[in-house]
């Protein structure tokens, strides 16, 4: 190879290399542009621009970060299924075990948010049994606790948080919520035994008194009809009035207990969302 040929070859190599470098520089700029959209909470455009990065990223340099940002943008937009898809893609493109873990945790959080609790718990159990993540056990218990909170299982949630630390803030909080919940079955049984008692248990005193009064009235009229040998009247009053009020009383007790529980859990979730400062799904 003579001198001139060597020069030409060197120039060609330089040319090709700088094309690649230029392309990647453009891609970096595009990535930063997408990132700025994400930071300004313009999630729709951020997803578009990150997808553009992925499309033109021939060297697969941004596969992890772009997919991660897309997933997070979808999550912020409430599109949880799409977010899970892109977190999974990010996980597949992960270079380190920490990145894999972060993606898996994000998927767990999304399953908690969309209340696919079984799936969330299964993913957590998989990580707990994976030796690579043995140092993350406490964090996994934490998310399992949250998973139980979102599925309205406050006692189980408290147990999971207490595995991190017996006096963990969320453990005592969940236990307090569990203790303040009304036992729906107990309310029903009370009303079966004494009409109105279930309502009294849930703090609905007026409804309890009314229920007791109506049942006492129709019960008295039924028994009175039978004692006076007006069997047909007794059957009609018992069937069309007493039984209906009796069943209504049990139904009412159950309804009140459920409504009160819903209010308690909603208040608890409100607190966790707006006041609690720890990590949230």
């Amino acid at each position, binding site marked *: 190879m003579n001198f*001139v040929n060597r020069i*030409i070859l060197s*120039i060609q190599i330089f*040319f090709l290399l*700088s094309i690649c470098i*230029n392309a990647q520089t*453009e891609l970096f700029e595009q990535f930063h542009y997408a990132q700025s959209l994400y930071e300004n909470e313009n999630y729709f455009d951020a997803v578009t621009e990150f*997808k553009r990065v992925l*499309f033109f990223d021939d060297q697969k340099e941004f596969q992890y970060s772009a997919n991660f940002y897309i997933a997070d943008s979808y999550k912020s937009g409430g599109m949880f299924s799409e977010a899970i898809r892109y977190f999974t893609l990010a996980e597949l493109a992960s270079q380190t075990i920490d990145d894999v873990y972060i993606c898996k945790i994000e998927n767990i959080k999304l399953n908690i948010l969309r209340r696919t609790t079984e799936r969330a718990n299964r993913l957590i159990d998989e990580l707990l049994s994976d030796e690579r993540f043995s140092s993350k056990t406490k964090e996994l218990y934490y998310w399992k606790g949250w998973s139980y909170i979102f599925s309205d299982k406050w006692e189980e949630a408290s147990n999971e948080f207490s595995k991190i630390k017996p006096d963990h803030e969320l453990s005592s909080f969940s236990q307090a919520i569990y203790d303040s919940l009304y036992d729906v079955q107990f309310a029903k049984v009370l009303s079966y035994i004494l009409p109105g008692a279930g309502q009294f248990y849930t703090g609905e005193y007026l409804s309890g008194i009314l229920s007791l009064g109506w049942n006492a009235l129709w019960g008295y009229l039924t028994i009175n009809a039978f004692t006076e040998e007006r069997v*047909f009247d007794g059957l009609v009053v018992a069937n069309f009035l007493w039984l209906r009020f009796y069943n209504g009383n049990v139904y009412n007790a159950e309804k009140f207990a459920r409504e009160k529980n819903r209010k308690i859990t909603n208040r608890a979730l409100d607190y966790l969302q707006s006041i609690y400062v720890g990590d949230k799904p």
Partner: protein
Amino acid sequence: MIKILLFVIISSNFSYSQNFHTPENRKLFADYLFCSKDYLRAVLEYEEYIKHFDNDTVLFKIALGYSKIENYNEAVKRFINISVQSDYYSSARLEYLKSKLFLEDYNSIIDFSRNNLRNNELKLISMSILLSDKNLPERNNFIFAFEDNLRTQIEDFFDHKINPPYKSPLLAGIFSTVVPGSGKLYTNQISEGLTSLVLNGLVAFLSYNNFKNDHTTRGWIFAGVGAFFYAGNIYGSAVSANIYNQRVDYEYKENVKVFLEAHNYFIERYEFCK
């Protein structure tokens, strides 16, 4: 010579810059989005592209994108503007009809240009008549557009449209006037019919029995309750017939839509994403 070569290579190198937002790159990216079923973003990218280039395929894909994201009003506007010279003109006409079908604008479909109607357009228009309140044409005029293997199904739809298996609210009311609950039995509400019969019979008997035993007040109370139940039973039977008829209509329309879906609205499948 070497100097010239050097100058060309270096200057071309420095002028090289991969702009991802050029119209060509936007189109490439939009094609990728379209095939990833991210139709909204694909449409937005295509819209940018056609600001610079006129492209029939892109115009059609924009319209199709709007249809895919169920923005049928916009889709209709775009499909109708596809030029006669476009390769996608006939597809655009069919897609236009399909979008109108989703908008339940049956009048527009039926009034669609009747000149040079293609066979599949005729099929879609015929199916729209089945879904609309319009009168059907002659049986043979209606089914001739369809292939032999579809005709049995189409004739079933046609017969159903001409003679739907409705229940008469008047007849249901009369039945229940004669025998309480029988109107509901007529509208296939077996348990409600039997309950109505027993309840009316029971209250009537209670009234009769109380009058017979000189409990006049209670007799009148039960007679009042009985009259209320009796009137309710007649009214309820007529309502039940109406509900039955609405269910017949709903199931019929659902069956026609399932049929259309199964035959892809008589539109050939596109090969944009092979």
